[in-house]
């Protein structure tokens, strides 16, 4: 087969693939992400206001609200509810801090039969590990830049 003919076939093939592969239902996904993501943040705001009203400082109240959301998300993941919501919410349940909690509980629970150390202890960091590594390193670089140039 000549090279140009081969290229042509590859092009036709990729057009065929693009035509028949399932398209993500974008509008539905985006709507779900917006409403569920927005709702989780609104709940976070309610918790934040509540913790301020009982006398916590602004930053402490924010941390307490985050910890509460994490607690609720961990329990809901354990009950299998969080992943059911995620089917409709997509990134709306991944991007908020609750998604971070979900990313710890879900693999830890799934691999528990591999033991409490290599199952739970190790797998809980499957996604949280990379998140913490990139977060720590990039924040350290910001601190270093501040030290050097300020």
């Amino acid at each position, binding site marked *: 087969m000549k090279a140009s003919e081969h290229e042509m076939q590859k092009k036709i093939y990729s057009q065929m693939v693009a035509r028949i592969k399932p398209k993500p239902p*974008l509008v539905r*996904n*985006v709507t*779900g*992400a*917006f*409403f569920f*993501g*927005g*709702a989780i*943040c*609104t709940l*976070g*705001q*309610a*918790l*934040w*206001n509540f913790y301020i009203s009982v006398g916590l400082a602004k930053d402490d109240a*924010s*941390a307490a609200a985050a*910890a509460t959301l*994490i607690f609720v998300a*961990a*329990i809901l*993941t*354990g*009950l*299998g509810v969080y992943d059911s919501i995620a089917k409709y919410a*997509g*990134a*709306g349940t*991944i*991007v*908020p*801090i609750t*998604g*971070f*909690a979900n*990313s710890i509980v879900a693999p830890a*629970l799934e691999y*528990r039969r591999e033991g*409490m150390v290599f199952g*739970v202890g190790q797998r*809980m960091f499957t*996604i*949280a590990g*990379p*998140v*913490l590594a990139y*977060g*720590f390193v*990039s*924040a*350290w670089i*910001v*601190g*270093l*830049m*501040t030290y050097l140039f*300020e």
Partner: protein
Amino acid sequence: MDYLKAFIVGGGICVIGQLLMDLTSYRVTPAHILVGFVTGGVALSALGLYQPLVDFAGAGATVPLPGFGHLLAQGAVRGVRENGLLGAFAGGVEAAATGIAAAIIFGYLVAAVFTPRGE
């Protein structure tokens, strides 16, 4: 009013994540979204762009993962101002410690106590 702002900005940040997942290569997984959003939050925070969003939208900006990155970055900056170079190591982790510890502690306890589905 602060609830509406939290809803719209928080929902909007999640929409960006959804678009990244749906419109890019299948290689972009939720793990990449989480890592990208935390690192992106650190970068936006360093450029001074994230604090205005927190002032405007409250939990709408702090609850999504870029808010976690913002916490780490601002902690590192504050650490350096108070303690010099040592603060670059401790500051970020200190600022984000409650969230990190809560996620690890509650995550571990739930995984240890609850029954995996399908068993």
